């Protein structure tokens, strides 16, 4: 009953959205395409999302340079934090999945995890409120780099013949059935892997941002622009927004973890002797 009333209230306000600036402004896809910030009209045009990406990359580089520029045997201060950061990825992902093959990929996987976390967490950071990974370019680029690495490493470790045979012609299948099986295996392994890596991260970060905008937008609308009892709806709306902000921290971490973990799993699968 109450939910219906709120929904009708919001619906009646919707036509006003985008008009004279009044009424409830529902979040849309345009959230992810902010206008130019600097160098408008040139090839160096910088949007807010690009600026956030550059800023977070700078922060991350500065952190690791400061952490490891003056290495001491007994770590203190920021070096301690830096070592914890590296060790987390080393223990939770690299040792766990890649074992003795780990050191070769440690730099890439560690950089990838912390870069993704830095890009994801901007979704809830004050003055930013937009995940760099919520536009397709960033997750797609990282997925393509992972795709190139696991394929190149797979070919290098097994030779092209064995690698493609293991991936395209699964053992234990009668030879004529390969006509049906091999095209599916090709699409599944070589096309859908980078696509699923990209879409999983992108969709999570986009939906998280839309939910936050929806709840905080509704809070502002009910509190400032609605009358009487409807003002009270701002309270649950605010708490939902707050709850989803906390949830976004978990999502930011989890998505960075899953992306890095799956890259490690793909590399391990491609380079393992059983292939």
């Amino acid at each position, binding site marked *: 009953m109450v939910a219906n009333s709120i929904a009708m209230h919001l619906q009646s306000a919707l036509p006003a959205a985008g008009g004279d600036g009044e009424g409830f402004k529902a979040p849309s896809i345009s959230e992810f395409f902010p206008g130019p910030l600097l160098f408008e009209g040139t090839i160096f045009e910088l949007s807010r999302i690009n600026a956030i990406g550059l800023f977070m990359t700078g922060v991350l580089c500065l952190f690791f340079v400061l952490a490891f520029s003056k290495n001491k045997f007994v770590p203190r201060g920021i070096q301690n934090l830096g070592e914890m950061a590296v060790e987390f990825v080393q223990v939770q992902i690299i040792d*766990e999945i890649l074992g003795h093959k780990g050191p070769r990929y440690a730099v890439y996987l560690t950089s990838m995890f912390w870069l993704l976390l830095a890009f994801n967490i901007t979704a809830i950071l004050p003055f930013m409120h937009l995940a760099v990974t919520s536009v397709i370019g960033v997750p797609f680029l990282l997925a393509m780099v992972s795709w190139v690495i696991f394929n190149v490493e797979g070919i290098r470790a097994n030779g092209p013949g064995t690698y493609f045979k293991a991936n395209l012609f699964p053992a234990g299948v009668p030879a004529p059935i390969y006509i*049906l*099986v091999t095209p*599916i295996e090709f699409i599944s392994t070589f096309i859908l892997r980078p696509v699923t890596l990209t879409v999983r991260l992108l969709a999570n970060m986009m939906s998280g941002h839309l939910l936050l905008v929806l709840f905080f937008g509704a809070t502002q609308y009910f509190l400032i622009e609605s009358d009487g009892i409807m003002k009270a709806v701002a309270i649950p709306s605010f708490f939902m927004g707050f709850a989803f902000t906390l949830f976004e921290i978990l999502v930011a971490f989890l998505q960075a973890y899953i992306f890095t973990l*799956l890259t490690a799993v793909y590399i*391990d699968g491609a380079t393992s002797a059983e292939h």
Partner: protein
Amino acid sequence: MTNQKPQKLIPTDTGPGEDVAWGMVSTLVAGPLVWGGIGMLIDSLVGTTRIFLPLGIVLGFVVSFYIVYVRFGRETETVQEEK
């Protein structure tokens, strides 16, 4: 590096488990996609309307399930037999 190694937060089988889950999903998506696409192509070449497309989708599903069984089902059976 610090002397104390952090505790493992994630159980050992999380990685391969994730891989199996996403491997199954991508195979089940790829099957109807590939054979449905080929069906659609045949439809447009032969001039029929939506005959080979549904056939391709069904064939894709069947082959996908077969691949999932071959890739993942047999391995599970072997592990259970070993136990």
